[in-house]
């Protein structure tokens, strides 16, 4: 089995809810991420999907060490990243980089592209000595499919897709091993989205990168990922290979989510069955007891309110699924007729 490059164990991030101005009193906790464990294998893409508020972006921020977790152990090649300090921390930051969602706000409008992409070299001088920086930046521009002559331009002179390429070039600058992509294509138009997705795949093959790919678009995640984790209200509902999750989902939430994705094929209109979930996602400040999905689940029984289902393999599931009643169900997508 290939080595796990990043191991996340029981990651918890709670945000306090406070009341009062002078005497702040904590009156509750928003449980943004509540016990997530996963591992990233070297060279793979791990997709993380979920609807808004499920904690997928918080997960990215905590993994990047932009926010301190409430509790967690994250091992990078066997070393706990939250125990690292000084030089070790700095070396680690080289290895894990982030591509952000919004290409319009994540680039400083007052900096040229050359400065933006070259900025990491100021801190990590060992990667590119001063004299060679400009040339390095031009190489990076070429790698991500931009013209090296554009090095002196400002972000506003580029389109959304081009800006996202700049963001990717910046993440690549320090030759990281892991790139965390937080919704990298969701702000882009369809025709541009495909270009950026192809670029991410090409870079992975070229540089042997490992991706944690966070997105809400299930089709995009399927296209890029080797393994997929489905999140709901701060917990992983189901995790498995791309094939296991999309062809043989066993958690009711995954099944509902997949069935709701509109398929670009009008002939599937009459054959597909959409599992209609009622209501909205509960507030993460006050999640339901037991299984968090039980309030919207059609299979819910008494046990679901009492016992939190563990994320383990079950008789009805060939991959870990956090449901007491995990079992396969045909999800009718496109033209293949199925059993509902």
């Amino acid at each position, binding site marked *: 089995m290939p080595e796990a490059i990043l191991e996340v164990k029981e990651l918890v991030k709670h945000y306090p809810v406070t009341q009062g101005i002078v005497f702040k009193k904590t009156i509750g906790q928003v449980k943004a991420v509540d016990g997530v464990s996963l591992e990233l294998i070297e060279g793979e893409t791990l997709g993380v999907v979920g*609807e*808004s508020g499920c904690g997928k972006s918080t997960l990215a921020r905590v993994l990047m060490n932009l926010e301190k977790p409430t509790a967690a152990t994250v091992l990078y090649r066997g070393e706990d990243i939250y125990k690292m300090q000084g030089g070790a921390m700095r070396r680690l930051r080289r290895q894990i980089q982030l591509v952000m969602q919004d290409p319009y706000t994540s680039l400083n409008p007052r900096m040229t592209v050359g400065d933006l992409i070259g900025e990491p070299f100021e801190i990590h001088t060992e990667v590119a000595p001063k004299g060679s920086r400009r040339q390095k930046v031009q190489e990076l521009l070429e790698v991500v499919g931009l013209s090296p002559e554009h090095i002196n331009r400002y972000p506003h002179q580029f*389109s959304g*897709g*081009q800006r996202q390429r700049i963001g990717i070039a910046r993440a690549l600058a320090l030759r990281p091993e892991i790139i965390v992509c937080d919704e990298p294509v969701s702000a882009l*138009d*369809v*025709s*541009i*989205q*495909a*270009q950026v*997705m*192809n670029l991410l*795949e090409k870079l992975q093959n070229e540089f042997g990168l490992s991706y944690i790919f966070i997105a*809400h678009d*299930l*089709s*995009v995640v*399927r*296209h890029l990922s080797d393994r997929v984790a489905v999140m709901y209200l701060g917990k992983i509902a189901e995790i498995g290979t*791309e*094939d296991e999750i*999309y062809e043989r989902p066993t958690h009711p939430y995954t099944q*509902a*989510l*997949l069935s*709701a*994705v*509109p*398929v*670009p*094929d*009008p*002939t*599937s*209109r009459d054959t597909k069955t*959409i599992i*209609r*979930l009622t209501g*909205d*996602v509960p507030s993460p400040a006050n999640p339901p007891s037991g299984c968090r999905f039980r309030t919207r689940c059609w299979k819910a029984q008494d046990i679901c309110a009492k016992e939190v289902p563990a994320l383990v393999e079950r008789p009805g599931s060939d991959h870990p699924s956090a449901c007491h009643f995990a079992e396969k169900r045909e999800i009718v*997508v*496109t033209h*293949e007729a199925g059993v509902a």
Partner: protein
Amino acid sequence: MSDVMVADPQYSASGRPAGRLLEVEDLHVEFRTRDGVARVINGVTYHVNAGETLAVLGESGSGKSVTAQTIMGILDTPPGFVTKGQIRFHGDDMLQMSADQRRKIRGNGIAMVFQDSLSALNPVFTVGFQIGEQFRIRLGMSRKDAKRKAADLLDQVKIPNARQRVNEFPHQFSGGMRQRVMIAMSLALDPEVLIADEPTTALDVTVQAQIMDLLADLQRERQMGLILITHDLGVVADVADRIAVMYAGRIVEEANVHELYAKPAHPYTIGLLESIPRIDEKGQELRTIKGLPPNLMRIPSGCPFHPRCPMAQPVCSEKVPPLLQLSPSRASACHFAEELVNRA
């Protein structure tokens, strides 16, 4: 009234085909800005019938939303100016009407659902007050009656506890529920045509499915004409009857939904369909449309798509291809449309 209409030979000056509620004909809109003139809409022609869903599909900057704003009469002027064209509702050109006449059509003739419900609703009034506003002003109802009617509407869009929730403020609703409020508001005066501008773009997939169901049900009950503006090829395949694909302010293809997905007749549509990842298979490398959408201040000569088109020939940069009817149910604005349709 002009009776020249290249796109649709069935149309004749002798009369309007029955059922055509809203017709946009050869609409041109430009934005005059400090930096120059952006030609945002360059001859858009489409219509919607009663009980029908027309999907207007396009990427950002294709002019799909500006067309809708022009129909509603909410185009920002300046910088936006209509330079040519007609928008006929029941045969009468709305662009020639006075502001008063147009106001009478808004709401009970044509209504619109906006994309971003958080900024479209006023945060300092209750949703009941905002929905009821139309009843008070247009129908002269009392506050109490208007609120009661508003609660009925919330009930119709399946908001639980409508009687209580009518007194709540927009921030107390979730994204999906706010979008329902927006739909309730647009339906208040029982419009004949509903324009929905990206109604589900900001929503999660499970909620999106709920909202699209709701729209489809309401449309069926009321036999409304629905213009659905979107960039999502999946949503379109689920609900549309006809599709108009827009690019650089023009309709490049119009067809029945089944024909369009089975055999697109414009290279841009082909490119779009090939570039989306599919949920039902892992797939290989995605095909892409090379290059970028054009700058609307400098639209390429001839066919605006030719710099990105894999089929481009010399004629494409010289002559603008007209939107030609290929069969009664489809039209394409490509010089090689016939070949595309007849291909294996």
